[in-house]
C-alpha cells in the first residue's frame, strides 16, 4: 500500500503506554514517542517497526563484552540490592568461563546473610570450582584478599567475587562495599576487569536509583539483567542504559547454571514492544 495513513495521535499514545507498561519509565517512554512524533514519513503501519528500530539503534553502540585482562588475574565483582540474583549469576558466569577453558575461582564475600557462604559453596561443588570463604561474620575485604592470593597461587585467569545484597540507601553498607573495592585496588597485580550490577527484571523505577548509587560507589561497568524468563519485560535495563550508559552484558533466564545468555538488543526490544 503506497498511500499509508499518517499515524494517529492515539497510536503514539498507545506506544508510549506500551513502553511504560514494560518499566521503561515515563520520561524515557515520552522521549522515545516524541522522537517518533517529530519524524516525517511514518505511517500507522510502519510506526511500531520504527520504534523497535530506534530502540535497537540506541542499544547498538554499547560494548557488551565481559572484560578479561590478558596475562593478569582478572577480577569481576558482582553487586546489587537484596535478592536480585547475584549469587546465582556468579555460578552461571563461572560455569560459562570454565566451559571456555578459563581457570576460575570464586570469593564468598557475602559474610552477612544466613547460609550465603553455603549457597555459593554448593554451586562451587556442583561446577567443580574453588570457593574461597571464611564463613559468616568474617571481614569481606579479608575474604577477597585471601581469594586473590589463592587465585594467584593457582595461576587462575579469573576470580569472581560474590557480595552481600545491600540496599543502596544504606550508607554503612555502601561504605563497606567501597572498602572491599579498595582491597582489590590495592593489589596492583590483579586487574579489576568488571563490576557487574545485577538487576531483577521485575524492578520498577527504583532500578535507576540503584544503578546511580552503585555506579557512584563502585564504578559499575556493566549490568546483568536477571529473571528475564518471567513475565516482566525488564524495560528498566533500557532506562538505566540510556540514563547512565552502563551496558547490559548478560541476561539471566532461569535458575540453572546454564541459564545465562548474552544481551541481544533485537530480541530484547521485540519482546518488550511485543
Amino acid at each position, binding site marked *: 500500500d503506497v498511500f499509508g495513513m499518517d499515524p494517529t495521535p492515539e497510536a503514539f499514545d498507545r506506544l508510549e503506554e506500551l513502553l511504560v507498561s514494560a518499566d521503561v519509565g515515563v520520561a524515557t517512554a515520552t522521549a522515545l514517542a516524541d522522537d517518533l512524533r517529530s519524524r516525517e514519513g511514518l505511517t500507522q503501519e510502519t510506526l511500531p517497526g520504527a520504534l523497535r528500530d530506534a530502540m535497537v539503534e540506541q542499544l547498538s553502540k554499547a560494548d557488551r563484552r565481559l572484560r578479561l585482562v590478558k596475562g593478569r588475574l582478572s577480577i569481576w565483582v558482582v553487586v546489587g540490592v*537484596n535478592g536480585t*540474583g547475584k549469587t546465582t549469576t556468579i555460578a552461571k558466569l563461572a560455569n560459562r568461563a570454565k566451559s571456555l577453558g578459563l581457570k576460575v575461582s570464586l570469593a564468598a564475600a557475602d559474610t552477612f546473610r*544466613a547460609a550465603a557462604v553455603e549457597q555459593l*559453596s554448593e554451586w562451587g561443588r556442583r561446577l567443580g570450582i574453588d570457593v574461597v570463604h571464611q564463613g559468616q561474620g568474617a571481614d569481606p575485604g579479608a575474604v577477597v584478599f585471601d581469594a586473590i592470593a589463592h587465585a594467584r597461587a593457582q595461576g587462575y585467569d579469573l576470580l569472581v567475587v560474590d557480595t552481600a545484597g545491600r540496599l543502596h540507601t544504606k550508607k554503612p553498607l555502601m561504605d563497606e562495599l567501597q572498602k572491599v573495592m579498595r582491597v582489590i585496588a590495592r593489589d596492583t597485580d590483579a586487574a579489576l576487569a568488571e563490576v557487574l550490577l545485577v538487576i531483577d527484571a521485575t524492578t*520498577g523505577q*527504583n532500578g535507576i536509583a540503584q544503578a546511580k548509587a552503585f555506579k557512584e560507589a563502585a564504578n559499575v561497568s556493566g549490568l546483568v539483567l536477571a529473571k528475564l*524468563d518471567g*513475565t516482566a519485560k525488564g524495560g528498566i535495563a533500557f532506562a538505566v542504559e540510556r540514563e547512565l550508559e552502563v551496558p547490559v552484558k548478560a541476561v539471566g533466564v532461569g535458575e540453572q547454571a546454564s541459564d545465562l545468555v548474552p544481551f541481544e538488543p533485537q530480541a530484547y526490544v521485540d519482546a518488550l514492544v511485543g
Partner: protein
Amino acid sequence: SLSERLETAFGRLRRKGKLTKADVEEGLKEIRLALLEADVALPVVRDFVERVREEAVGEKVLRSLTPGQQIVKVVNDELVRMLGTNNRELRFADAPPTVILLVGLQGSGKTTVAAKLANQLKDRKPLLAACDLQRPGAVEQLRQLGAQIGVDVEGGEPNGDPIPVAKRALNKAVTENYGVLIVDSAGRLAVDEELMAQARAIKDAIRPTETFLVLDSMTGQDAVQTASAFNEKLEPTGAILTKLDGDARGGAALSLVGVTGLPIVFAAIGERIEDLEAFYPDRMASRILG
C-alpha cells in the same frame, strides 16, 4: 511532590480566573504521572484516576483557594482507602496449629519473612518447615535462621519433593503441640505451570489458615501480572510487602490491591529478624504519593 506539581499546574491556570472542570483535567494528568512514576501499574492508574475524577472536578476543589492541596487530599484519601482494603491482623486457626504458607517470586524475601514471623509468634511455639528443596542452601538458610531465634525447623533433602516434607511438618506440629506452622516454599514464576501446580499441591496438603503472597516493594509494572496469576492459581489470603526500608515508592502495593483486593498484612522493613511490622495504609499512601 504531587502537591507541588499540582500547585504549579493550577498556578498557571488560576491566573485566568476560576478553575473549570477542563482545568482540573490537567490535575488528573499530574496524578496519573505521579502514580506511574511511583510504579503503580498502568491499568490500576487508569482505574484510580477514574475513581477520583468525580470528586477531583467537584465544587469543593473548584471553589477552593488551594485546589492543588484539595486534589492531593482526594487522592491521598482514596489511596489510604484502597490500600486499607480488608486490612486486618494475622488470622489464627480455631484449633492449633495455625498453618501459614509463604509463596512468591524468586528473591522476594519469603525465607527471611518465615523466620521473622516465627520470631514474632515465639510464644505460640512455632515450627518452621523448610519446603524449598530447590535453591542451593535454602534449607540450611532457614535452619540457621531458626537456630538464631530458637525455633525448630523441619527440613527435607535437596531436590526432593516438598509435599511430603510439608505433610511431615504438619504432622509434627499436630502431634507435638506446636501452635503455629510456618511453611517456606521455593521462589517460583507465576508462569511456571509445573511449579505453580506444586505450590497448589503443598497448599492442598496442609490446608493453611493463611497463604501469604510475599512481594518485593520495588516491583514495577509486572506486579499486576504476578499478583493476578498467584491470586488465581493459589488463592492467597493476604500479602506481605518486603524491603520497605529501601527508597522504592512502592506502587506495587496499589497494583496488588487494585487487581486482587488482598489485604497487605505485614510490612518487612529490613534484614534483621525483628524487621517485620503491621502494614500501615496511610504510611504507604504518602510514600507512593512521594
